[in-house]
């Protein structure tokens, strides 16, 4: 089982993703350079967090056109698993591998803090080690995390169970106060209709070590392994 972690100019959480999959999971990983066309045999592609191309035009807009993204798109279209975290989520939306868009936080400020997530769909290859409704403590760190989509798109997502994570309060309730960025319906993470491409704004790769406060993010990575083993 091999993870491929894509490095765009401006990516900065590649090391965090690397540590998450090679550390507690003991999986192998390779870094994939944005100018290359080679996925180096990676089974799962991670688009990690950061500010690809400075996010100067729109978050993720320019990275989408990198040479490596042609391969990532082909991999995804062939049913290969892809997970985009934070900037990676933004890139997946820009690349139309996921529906919707991520806009400037409603507060117009960057938000770095732990949030509580509720697992909305535990029946995916990225969440099968969680229980539906389970609450997770995971940090966020972003300025452009407000998920937006039109009404039809939203209904389609909801109907097909494609909303995977929502921001909730400590009691598991969807409230405005628990929404750190103004996302539509408190959406924090979604999956594509095919079930092989997931994007989320929070950072599970920074919640893998009790010393750093939470291990709740680990489940995403162990779910991927469990899915492959199954």
């Amino acid at each position, binding site marked *: 089982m091999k993870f491929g972690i894509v490095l765009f*100019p*401006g990516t*900065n*959480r590649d*090391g*965090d993703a690397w*540590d*998450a999959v090679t550390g507690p999971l003991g999986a192998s990983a390779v870094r994939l350079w944005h100018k290359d066309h080679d996925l180096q045999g990676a089974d799962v592609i991670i688009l990690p*967090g*950061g*500010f690809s*191309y*400075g*996010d*100067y035009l729109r978050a993720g807009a320019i990275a989408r056109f990198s040479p490596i993204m042609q391969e990532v798109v082909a991999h995804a279209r062939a049913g290969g698993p892809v997970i985009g975290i934070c900037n990676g989520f933004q890139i997946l939306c820009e690349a139309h591998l996921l529906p919707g868009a991520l806009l400037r936080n409603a507060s*117009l*400020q*960057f*938000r*770095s*803090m732990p949030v509580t997530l509720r697992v909305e769909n535990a029946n995916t290859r990225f969440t099968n080690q969680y229980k539906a409704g389970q609450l997770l403590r995971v*940090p966020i*760190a972003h*300025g452009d995390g407000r998920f937006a989509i039109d009404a039809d798109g939203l209904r389609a997502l909801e109907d097909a169970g494609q909303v995977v994570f929502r921001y909730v309060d*400590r009691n598991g309730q969807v409230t405005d106060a628990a929404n750190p960025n103004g996302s539509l319906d408190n959406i924090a993470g979604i999956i594509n209709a095919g079930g092989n491409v997931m994007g989320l704004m929070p*950072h599970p*790769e*920074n919640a*893998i*070590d009790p*010393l*750093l406060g939470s291990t709740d993010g680990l489940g995403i990575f162990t779910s991927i392994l469990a899915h492959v083993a199954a």
Partner: protein
Amino acid sequence: MGATPRPGDPAITPALVADHGLTADEYDRLVAMLGRTPTLTEVGIISALWSEHCSYKHSRPVLRTLPTKAPHVLQGPGENAGVISIGDGLAIAFKIESHNHPSAVEPYQGAATGVGGILRDVFTMGARPIALLNSLRFGSLESPRVRWLVAGVVKGIGDYGNCVGIPTVAGEVVFDPSYEGNPLVNAMCVGLLKESDLIRAKAQGVGNPVIAVGARTGRDGIHGAAFASEDLSEASEAKRPQVQVGDPFTEKLLLEASLELITSGHIVAIQDMGAAGLTSSSAEMAERGDVGVTIDTTKVPVREPGMTPYEILLSESQERMLVVARRGHENEVRAILEKWDLVAEVIGEVIAEPVYRVTEGSKVVAEFPGSRLVTDCPVYHPEAREGEEVQRLRAMDVHAIAERPEESDPFWTLEQLLSSPTIASKTWIHRQYDSTVRGQTVVGPGHGDAAVVRIPGTTKAIALKTDCNGRYVYLEPRTGGRIAVAECARNVACTGARPMAITNCLNFGNPKRPEIFFQFREAVGGMGDACTALGTPVTGGNVSFYNESPGRAVFPTPTIGMVGLIDHVEQSVGGAFTTSGDAIVLLGEPTDELGASEYLSRIHGVTAGAPPRCDLERERLLVDVLLSAIGAGLVRSAHDCSDGGLAVALAESAMMNADAPRGFSVDLSAFTLPSRALLFGEAQGRVVVSTPDPQAVLQVAAQRGLPAFVLGTVGGIGEDVAFQVGSKRHTTSIARLATAFHDSIPNLMARVAVSSDDAAPAGSTR
């Protein structure tokens, strides 16, 4: 040979010399050095190099008195950053720097480029940046202009560090009217390197090419260094176009490219083009290497056509580096830069002839003998005399100030103090900083007295903090200088780390005024005393003078940035009470001191009295006791008593974890001090710890002769707070205190951050 004027250069007149901030004496010195009339380009070069910012002409003799050596110091002052060894072949590079004046004019870009500059100082040592800190001073948040400054500075710091992907892990923010017209923005960066990768900014090897790397040179910030050496005034407002715009994305690429260059072996030296740009970087590299250098300005990649040598040399465009490569390795250097989509151009050469020469094509436009343009810089020994106003304020009998009627309820007073922006929670600020990126932040902002950052691949961690109480320094500079270091050491030791070394940023007024130079000399002296006593040498720093706005100087603010080392990261502790039933123990003892306190300032509007005594021997003992107790696993939380005294320290420990504020109860009736000194006095050398085993903690303290007292017990989440003071018992809800602490700054910042006489946008409109 010798330089000749370019066609169109203005004549060198006394007015032009004065415009460049050079005195008549300094100009005469320049003429004597050259043996002829300087060209305009040469006047520009000298005005930059002999500016206070680059030359330290008023501070050098005083700085020389600081302790700088220890076996673990690999690089002391004089390089881009200091470096200490942490064992296992690893080292930490760190440095703090001010960006006060640019931030006063354009808070967003000023603060952002401050972060950019300090990052470059660290990665040019061969270190990968792993943490950022910042130390901020503003006027009162009641002022719309101050809110505009705060919003812009915080956004600028956040946007830059967040984009580069370096966590901002700690800092401090103080609000006082003395900073109203002249905020302080100090940024610190900490990097990790292999000892074997340490590289110094020393030009070497005759024939080696000098290469400009990174962003292109534009017309921005020309004369920024001279600008940082003047008081803020109407005239400096008019210089606004000198503001530089930062590009953190390019910085991230430059960081990766520079580290790759350093490990590649293709280069011998690398230096940031910071203040005074190409001029100071090239001159300083040549001086350190004791070689000559030639630069051809027509080879420098520029952003705009028609730039003159003067502009190219003095531009402060950001995200640029100067590199000396090994001869014949130019293409390898270029290839590395290209990989990161950056440009590299050979612009000059290291030469044997002891000259610093600038050409425009084949024409020489500036030429100085040897390294004299750095070494011949004037040095001043200004007069130092303590101001009479300060003497009067210090001598004031603050104990005679009558209590206000409301003070009969100590929780009223505590509420006022907890909501004082200097003490109140800074979450509104640091939630805009990415503190988790890189995945090593064990204790982040707001969770402990110092940040704790793990060193991957080892069991170790470092603890980091900045500190300074400018009010103390103002009222008694020597004591204030000592306390700044001692408080930093306490904060670092509270996490379980041994204090290792400091960097410092000395923010003062105009050194030509005797009372300011007195503050400077004494504060630096106090800092040195404390560094010697605590075994934390000075590895570098920065001096920022002229922090004045018409009519007044800021509080003298020698900000200390400290690095401590923890051998076993899992032993580190935070500042919040964690467990109901734990005993609360005070290490150190209260005294009847009220002078210079936040209590006097917030409750009585008075800045007076002598600051608390600072017994350095006692501070050292306290550090030892903390480290033994934490090392023995006896301590579940530790938090030092600083602004607001014991009552504030207790309350902060109870609600530092905003999600789970805890009640507690303490009995202080054994202390016979006046209650306000007991609760709110700022006696030094004290730390509040919580422990399951108070007797063992008392024993560790007793073994070293440090007084310690069991005060009470930690309660449950949401339970009440009780103080027994003398014969009276006072209780209140933790929610009341938590509201005062957590809501104060958000409520103030919710008001609009611009006033009608401010002609600039809030960061929020961009």
